[in-house]
């Protein structure tokens, strides 16, 4: 544990029988799924709950790279947006069935992540962040210019999925509850995959790289390739989040590719806690609920949300979930 900002999720005190904590860690995926099942009934609206799912998946995917591999990317909006645009275009302009469009979106976003990762993981530190930012802005401008495909500044539209066929049953996809639980399945899958990745030897390898890149390479890990793989997996999960958002809103705003969106992902991750598996999801939840609730109260909601951020950064550097795990679960 050399770097306190990226402290590992595993408890350092294995000697102590921290039962609850170890239970939570062992069953983190089932517990997360139970939480997700309850979510739409606890939040002000179902539409907001789906947004939490989308950004939760995106933030968890992002954290694979940021929290676990230790690479600060400022370009993940590109993968979210690519997933959304590819899905939208596939449904709207090629009449591809929705599930195939999701696969295409995920695959396409992953491919883009591979390409951008191959270029950016050659650099380190601030240069890495700058290269991801620049390449993501490139994607933004491509989407802006290719308006016959993407709708340009007006955003991509005309691909509303009204109903879907699940195992022979027609499901009304406009119904918010149906939509939530269908998309929740994808989110649960993504959480499980990320959890598997983190528990695998590969998960240990990326953490080794985060802690000390030179030592990892001395131990025989191919650092370059591991970073690239981590980048690609992270981008692929984010692309899944993008496809979910496309299905949810039936609209892809050009803003979804903007670096503001990338910054928001980083912010959510930090807010929830980059040091834990579920932290980024909590960050997305808190971020979106705060925006939603405070902007109903007052048009000066930005002041409140901004102040809360400052307080969190000052007093909870491990993020909400990270602090919760550290204080309560031990």
């Amino acid at each position, binding site marked *: 544990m050399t770097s306190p900002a990226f402290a590992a999720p595993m408890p350092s005190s294995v000697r102590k029988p*921290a039962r*609850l904590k170890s239970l939570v860690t062992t069953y983190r995926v089932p517990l997360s799924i139970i939480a997700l099942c*309850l979510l739409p*009934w*606890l*939040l*002000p*609206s*179902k*539409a*907001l709950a789906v*947004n939490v799912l989308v950004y939760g998946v995106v933030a968890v995917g992002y954290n694979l790279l940021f929290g676990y591999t230790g690479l600060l990317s400022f370009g993940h909006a590109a993968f979210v947006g690519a997933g959304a645009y590819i899905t939208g275009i596939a449904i709207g302009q090629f009449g591809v069935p929705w599930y195939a469009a999701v696969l295409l979106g995920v695959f396409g976003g992953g491919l883009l992540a591979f390409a951008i990762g191959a270029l950016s993981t050659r650099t380190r530190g601030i240069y890495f962040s700058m290269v991801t930012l620049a390449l993501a802005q490139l994607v933004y401008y491509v989407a802006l210019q290719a308006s016959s495909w993407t709708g*340009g*500044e*007006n*955003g991509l*539209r*005309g691909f*509303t999925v*009204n109903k879907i066929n699940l195992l022979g049953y027609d499901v009304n996809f*406009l119904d*918010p509850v149906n939509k939530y639980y269908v998309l929740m399945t994808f989110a649960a899958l993504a959480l499980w995959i990320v959890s598997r990745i983190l528990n695998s030897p590969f998960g240990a390898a990326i953490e080794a790289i985060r802690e000390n890149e030179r030592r990892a390479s001395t131990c025989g890990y191919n650092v370059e390739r591991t970073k690239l793989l981590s980048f690609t997996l992270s981008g692929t999960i984010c692309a899944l989040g993008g496809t979910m*958002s496309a299905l949810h*809103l*039936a*609209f*892809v*705003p*050009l*803003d*979804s590719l903007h670096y503001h969106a990338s910054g928001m992902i980083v912010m959510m991750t930090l807010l929830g806690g980059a040091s834990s598996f579920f932290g980024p999801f909590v960050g997305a939840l808190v971020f979106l609920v705060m925006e939603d609730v405070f*902007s*109903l109260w007052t*048009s000066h*909601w*930005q002041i409140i949300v901004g102040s809360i951020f400052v307080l969190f950064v000052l007093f909870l550097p491990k993020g909400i979930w990270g602090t919760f795990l*550290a*204080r*309560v679960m*031990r």
Partner: protein
Amino acid sequence: MTDSIRNITRTNISRRRALAGLGAGASLVAMPWIARAADDTIRIGFPTPLTGPFAAEAKDQVKSAELAVKQFNDKGGINGRKIELLVRDDKLNGGEAATRTLELIEKDKVHAVVGSLSSAVQLAVNEVTRARGVIYVSISQSDTINEVKDFSKYTFHEALNPHMTAGAVARHSFKKGAKVAHLAADYAYGHEMLRGFKRAQAEIGAETVGEILHPFGAADYSTFMPRLRSMRPDFLCISNFGRDQANSIKQAVDFGLKQQAKIVVPVILHNQRLAVGPEVFEGVVGGANYYWGLESQLPSAKVFNDAYRAANGGAIPTDYGAYGYTGLSSLLMAMQVAGGTDTDKVIAALEALKYDVAKGPQSYRKCDHQSVQSVLVLESQKKADMKSDADLFKVVANEPASEKVLRGCTELGFPA
């Protein structure tokens, strides 16, 4: 954290207590939304960008919309049903607007949606309302929303569109053989205005000597101004919106472009003129959907202004603000005719409606649901000529409502 503290915290919070606490917290969070009584109020959603660069215009929209709602409620509502306006901040973002509209429809069960203040945002709202069969009255400029691809039988476009606005301004300022240089914001609004101007120029015979696109929300225009000067135009046409308009005109004046060319804008904004002052805007010509000064010519404008003044401590309504009033009034009038909120009946009533609530006669064209209405061309006054602080513009022309200034239905892709 030391071991002793860790032990204390661990013994203090049992799993049972943690669960009880979680449950209590959850129900606390859920409470306001569970208690939503069924009632017969007519609810109208109003997403608009209360934060961001168009906030000033958005706030005026809300005030005017509230006025329309108040007037109907004071008259006893619609069929005895009260009207409630649910204002939401769409943050000038299509995704946010779509989410807010979903919330309004799914959670608040609104009967109709009015609002938005950007081309992209209204198209997002349009997409959501179209799929769910909810009536939407759009109150910001767009050409795209008229086209058949985005047409929704539930959507009515109350605002002017770039084609008719730019066309009117061009007809009343350009002459045959005039040289026009364009500076346009690089997004849908700028592109559509630019297209509208160029089309009108082609009819008039005015020549384009150059065009520059600037990024949306730019603060610095100094690099564009020497290039625009070197084009030696008779007219400088600046197609952008909100703060961009004030910033770009100010810098054009600083660079002496006004001595060389007449500055023309598609929509001259009341709030932006107030933000910079009369010296800078002096002589700038632009279009508008509404100007309070119409009250000397139009009785309906006088009635609207007086009601607005009474409700807002003597303040006058602005151009984009008036959209909130005309848009909401037309919808509520149609609901009155339909006797309630039955979607098909309200659509039929809106299509047949002839209304004059602020700016002369208006009606919705059948094919694309575009509001056929008058277009004003205004010129910003010299400070010496202003009779009061609010006497900002001189009405150069008031093009009467006519379908002729719109693109034809077949051109938009509708069957003839």
